[in-house]
């Protein structure tokens, strides 16, 4: 039953392929930027050998292309693939293409202004640093495109519900809608920030901007953004991984509960990125901290459910004893290369999760806020489980949607392990450096890591060198992946075009309870809105009444305002 195929139209298949292949090129530029950063930071290079420009231009395209562009495209492509597949219905092709074109035009626009050095504002684009207006317009088109794509799925879902009364919505569909419900609510805030504050100000229509307000709106978006990254990976963990491991999902209800909890708690938590900010009372920061702990619960449930599913799979493969299952999983089977991407991500996520709880812990944040610890942490989340699941998913989907067999499977299987080793080394270097006081977003190579500088910090050097080592290994991992990816993309199809069908490894569940209280998004969306209003009204009030004056725009190159 779970192993069925679905026939997409040729145009729908081509769209999914484009939404994966073009962003993969952008991702490679972004990852190249990451490697250069590690070299800059150690003082090995002083300017970018290929793209030109300084550390901060590279850091901007690294953050924007990897964490915003690539991830958004993947989530949309994943939805365009899995929603029709799971519901066995066809998308409106015109709307799907419109959304894809909006996203592509927007991303390319933003990428160009970054690469010509007109938008060196990093991926958080905090004012009063000002980017070229096309940067803001490009990001807006990307977001609007993703809204259009998800709106296209809604009629299919509603029709399916009407035609299948009493049946459970497939878990993949619940997960993807959860992803985009969180995304939609979150991006409303950043849309307000961009359209009503940043864009008119960057065009010169208004002179001044309230920096704290813009920052607060950004983080309203910024935290749920991390769940927008994580949730498609969760869908793969719950829906694909048990099957790939040779077992079943331990509990279907746990998956549904987890998704609903993310809708409720993903958003009223953004102020935990502003623990060290002025103009927000500490009691509201604490409230956001409490909700942040609440949103850790679904991840703990996930850890349990996935481990239980893998244990079940291991036992089916003949494992004995308490931990025997761990040794029976298909880690290094080249035919099962997809499993490697998911299991490495899960192992990394143990460290990512622990780091996240540390960051969330209110006063403890004083120790690590904005130090190198922070990129050390989030490479273990977004550049770990998220990136690996997305890479695995991308390779799987180009195979399915371009009607190709995967080539160089051994390369594809080995890439995530190489990447993981590099990642653990790099993150260790960044995290320990951070605890010693090394700031993030800083070209240490030109000061703190330069023996000729008065600011030289000899005791940071071993950790800066570890990030070079780790970063280089990560880069090699990505190169191995890219080779297998493009070899597959440019290979000849073995199956005639007319017979092209798509399949996904959908797991069955071991425990399948009715869980009628988890079948409808509406109550959870309502609770989410109530919590958002309760948690953000006092924060916005504080910001408005404790700030004074507005800010003129600045370029990163001069201490004199631009107007």
């Amino acid at each position, binding site marked *: 039953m779970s192993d069925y195929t679905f026939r997409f139209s040729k145009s729908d298949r081509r769209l999914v392929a484009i939404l994966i292949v073009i962003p993969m090129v952008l991702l490679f530029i972004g990852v190249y930027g990451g490697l250069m950063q590690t070299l800059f930071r150690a003082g090995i290079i002083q300017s970018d050998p290929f793209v030109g420009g300084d550390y*901060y231009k590279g850091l901007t395209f690294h953050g924007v292309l990897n964490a915003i562009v690539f991830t958004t495209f993947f989530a949309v492509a994943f939805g365009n693939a899995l929603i029709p597949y799971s519901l066995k219905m066809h998308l409106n092709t015109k709307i799907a293409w419109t959304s894809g074109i909006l996203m592509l035009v927007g991303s390319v626009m933003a990428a160009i202004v970054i690469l010509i050095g007109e938008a060196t504002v*990093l991926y958080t684009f*905090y004012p*009063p*640093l000002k980017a070229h207006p096309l940067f803001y317009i490009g990001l807006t088109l990307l977001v609007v495109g993703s809204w259009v794509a998800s709106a296209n799925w809604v009629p299919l879902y509603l029709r399916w519900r009407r035609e299948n009364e009493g049946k459970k919505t497939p878990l993949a569909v619940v997960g993807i809608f959860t992803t985009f419900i969180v995304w939609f609510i979150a991006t409303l805030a950043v849309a307000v920030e961009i359209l009503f504050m940043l864009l008119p100000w960057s065009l010169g229509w208004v002179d001044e901007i*309230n*920096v*704290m307000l813009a*920052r607060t709106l950004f983080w309203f978006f910024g935290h749920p953004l991390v769940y927008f990254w994580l949730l498609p990976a969760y869908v793969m963990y719950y829906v694909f991984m048990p099957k790939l491991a040779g077992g079943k999902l*331990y509990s279907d209800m*746990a998956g549904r509960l987890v998704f609903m909890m993310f809708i409720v708690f993903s958003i009223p938590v953004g102020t935990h990125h*502003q*623990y*060290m*900010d*002025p*103009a927000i*009372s*500490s*009691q509201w*920061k*604490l409230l956001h*901290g409490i909700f942040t*702990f609440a949103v850790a*619960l679904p991840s*703990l*449930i996930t850890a*349990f459910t996935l481990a239980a599913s893998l244990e079940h799979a291991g036992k089916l493969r003949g494992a004995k004893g308490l931990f025997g299952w761990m040794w029976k999983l298909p880690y290094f089977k080249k035919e099962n290369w997809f499993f490697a991407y998911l299991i490495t991500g899960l192992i990394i996520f143990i460290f990512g999760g622990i780091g996240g709880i540390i960051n969330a*812990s*209110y*006063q403890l*944040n*004083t*120790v690590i*806020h*904005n*130090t190198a610890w922070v990129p050390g942490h989030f490479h273990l989340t977004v550049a770990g489980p998220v990136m690996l699941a997305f890479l695995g998913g991308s390779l799987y989907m180009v195979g399915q949607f371009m009607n190709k067999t995967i080539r160089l499977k051994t390369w594809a299987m080995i890439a995530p392990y190489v990447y993981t080793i590099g990642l653990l080394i790099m993150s260790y270097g960044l995290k320990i450096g951070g605890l010693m*006081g*090394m*700031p993030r*977003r*800083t*070209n240490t190579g030109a*000061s*703190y890591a330069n023996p000729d500088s008065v*600011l030289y*910090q000899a005791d940071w050097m071993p950790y800066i060198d570890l990030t070079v080592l780790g970063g280089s290994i990560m880069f090699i991992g990505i190169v191995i992946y890219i080779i297998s990816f493009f070899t597959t993309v440019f290979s000849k199809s073995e199956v005639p075009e007319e017979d092209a069908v798509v399949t996904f490894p959908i797991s069955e569940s071991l*425990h399948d309870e009715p869980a009628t209280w988890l079948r409808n998004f509406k109550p959870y969306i309502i609770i989410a809105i109530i919590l958002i209003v309760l948690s953000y009204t006092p924060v916005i009030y504080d910001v408005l009444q*404790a*700030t*004074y*004056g*507005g*800010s003129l725009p*600045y370029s*990163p*190159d*001069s*201490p004199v*305002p631009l107007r």
Partner: protein
Amino acid sequence: MDKSEKLALGLSGLLLVLFFGAIMYAAVAKDIDVPTCITDMDPFVTDTLFQTGPDTYELQMVARMWAFQPSTVRLPVGSTVDLYVTSQDIIHGFKVEQHNINLMAVPGAINYMRVTFNKPGEFMYACHEFCGAAHHTMAGRFIIEENDEVTEMIGGSL
């Protein structure tokens, strides 16, 4: 939900409650808190340091592209400083090494934390928010002296 799931859920909840209890303990019993909203202070544009008691000082610090004012602060061991930070242009960040003090310097707002220097030495503060082309050169230091009563501020107006 089977028995092991209930157990896992219960233990997870317990773990989070425990962590959260530790936070509340630190906040209430140890009085360790994060910065809060400052409304009873007039905006300042120049830096000042003055003594407010036998071992207590008030320091108003201004961050700008690309320097902290003051860039060096000399204080005797055991000093407690009420530290106010703001920015004159764009966003900067301020953290003193080996001390639990970490503040964003945002234009249009005043940030505050109290810090006590219990051991002698030099403690750097490096700007930790990207603030433009020379961000990596923006740093300063506290010099905490064992013996005498010197207080001094360099690189700003005293």
